[in-house]
């Protein structure tokens, strides 16, 4: 069971760490100063959750690996985040749609995880729920502003939705790890998370006057460590200093 718990915890950690890394790229380049603050805050919240999860993953593994060992010394194939979070920032519509699609999944996931039979996961989720709530509120508000704002913002938001929709299937993929975690009462039933996600997406897109893309082909592979070509560059940038000076304190 502990290897399943490790795999599951790393999936949660990798999603939120890579999203944080992407959002961190915005710092100093946001469309307005208030958004620079909001984006940095979002990146910081995600990083905090990632650190809790990585530390816990290291404990579950029992080999003495720290949060930094797990973040800085794993390669692409060992990272198991969904491809959605590694997609480039693009314009602000892409960044916000990516966050919205993730937030609408992350909030019900964290809410449900607070009831996990694994006390650590439940505690970490408990800490994240409040943040996840305002992340979803803020990204939903932007989707509505874009959709119901100007013609240009509407088009950009719709284009971002069309581009990123293919990456949403992966959020709800099931496999043996997830099945076992769910039947042990340690992970929520992913179908119920999908239901909550789908409802939020429909509500927000309706208010935004945006069209929900059709569920055509869905990308897969992230959970198995099969990523897009972006992933290598994300890790190269994130890890290069740490790898250049192995074994030292910072």
């Amino acid at each position, binding site marked *: 069971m502990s290897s399943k718990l490790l795999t599951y915890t790393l999936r949660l950690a990798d999603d939120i760490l890579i999203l944080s890394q992407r959002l961190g790229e915005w*710092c100093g380049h946001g469309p307005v100063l208030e958004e620079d603050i909001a984006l940095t805050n979002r990146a910081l919240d995600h990083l905090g959750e990632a650190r809790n999860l990585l530390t816990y993953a290291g404990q579950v593994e029992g080999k003495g690996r720290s949060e930094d060992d797990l973040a800085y010394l794993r390669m692409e194939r060992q990272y198991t985040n969904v491809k959605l979070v590694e997609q480039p920032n693009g314009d602000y519509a892409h960044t916000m749609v990516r966050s919205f699609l993730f937030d609408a999944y992350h909030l019900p996931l964290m809410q449900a995880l607070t009831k996990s039979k694994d006390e650590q996961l439940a505690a970490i989720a408990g800490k994240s729920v409040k943040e996840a709530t305002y992340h979803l509120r803020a990204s939903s508000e932007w989707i509505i502003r874009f959709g119901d704002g100007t013609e240009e913002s509407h088009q950009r938001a719709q284009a971002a939705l069309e581009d990123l929709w293919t990456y949403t299937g992966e959020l709800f993929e099931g496999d043996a790890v997830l099945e076992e975690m769910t039947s042990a009462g340690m992970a929520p039933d992913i179908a119920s998370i999908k239901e909550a996600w789908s409802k939020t997406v429909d509500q927000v897109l309706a208010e935004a006057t945006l069209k929900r893309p059709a569920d055509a082909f869905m990308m897969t592979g992230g959970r198995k460590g099969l990523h897009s070509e972006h992933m290598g560059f994300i890790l190269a940038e994130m890890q290069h200093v740490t790898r250049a000076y192995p074994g030292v304190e910072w």
Partner: protein
Amino acid sequence: MTDVKNLEELFQAKIDAEQKIEPKDWMPDAYRKNLIRQISQHAHSEVVGMLPEGNWITRAPSLKRKAILLAKVQDEAGHGLYLYSAVETMGTSREQTIDDLLSGKAKYSSIFNYPTLSWADIGAIGWLVDGAAIMNQVMLCRTSYGPYARAMVRICKEESFHQRQGYEIMAVLAKGSPEQKEMAQDALNRWWWPSLMMFGPTDANSPHSEQSMKWKIKRQSNDELRQTFIDRTVQQAEVIGLSIPDPDLKWNEETQHYDWGEIDWTEFNNVVAGNGPCNKERLAARNKAHNDGAWVREAALAYAAKKAKRKAA
């Protein structure tokens, strides 16, 4: 004419009595202009200063350092906001103030025209650049214009945290591997002199200083603040075993201060004139963010207008 003279006398009497000037109070045009220039430069410095530090967020060598750096840069953006608001109390809109930055008309602290080339530069910025800024900012907590003084009180609390985290980065590097220590020393070598330049020209060559002291916008001269900074920082460098890159640096028993070498004012003037290593990049980055964000700001305004109209209907 007599009226204005009376008002000016009253104004100066108020300042001499250590009373704060508030937005609705009468003030001489020159006081207003001087403050708009100074506060907006300060605001721009916070915002442009996000760039050299933001440069290392994606590459911070541990998750803890990444978190601290994110929080720090977020603070800088917050400082920018308070200060733009302080400028607005003097009757200049935030848009106008920002346009002046983007067009290159307004200045910001030249220190941010230097590049951050290694992780140790993040330590050096916190320790030296924020350290130098604090010298000025502590003084500005008592500045005569109320909204500026109050903004500075809040800013100072955060800046002293920034300085400590920068010094701590340097301390860890200095006692780390030989490569880390070399990285720290190299950063100190590159940032030392530009940090001293942050206090501005010598008192003899400072065009705005005398009037600013009389109006109690400033309370200590550039040279006094610079000397205090040097005295303090030299000791901090000794504690962590790094050397200040100034062969003329020497303790003077008589003055109870350090004597030190000559600032390269040609370099200072060059960077102020736009020829620093990163002037073009910094301004280009701000302009790109502003231009790329135009449709976002328009969308937000358009949506707010639609919403207000629906509510009214």
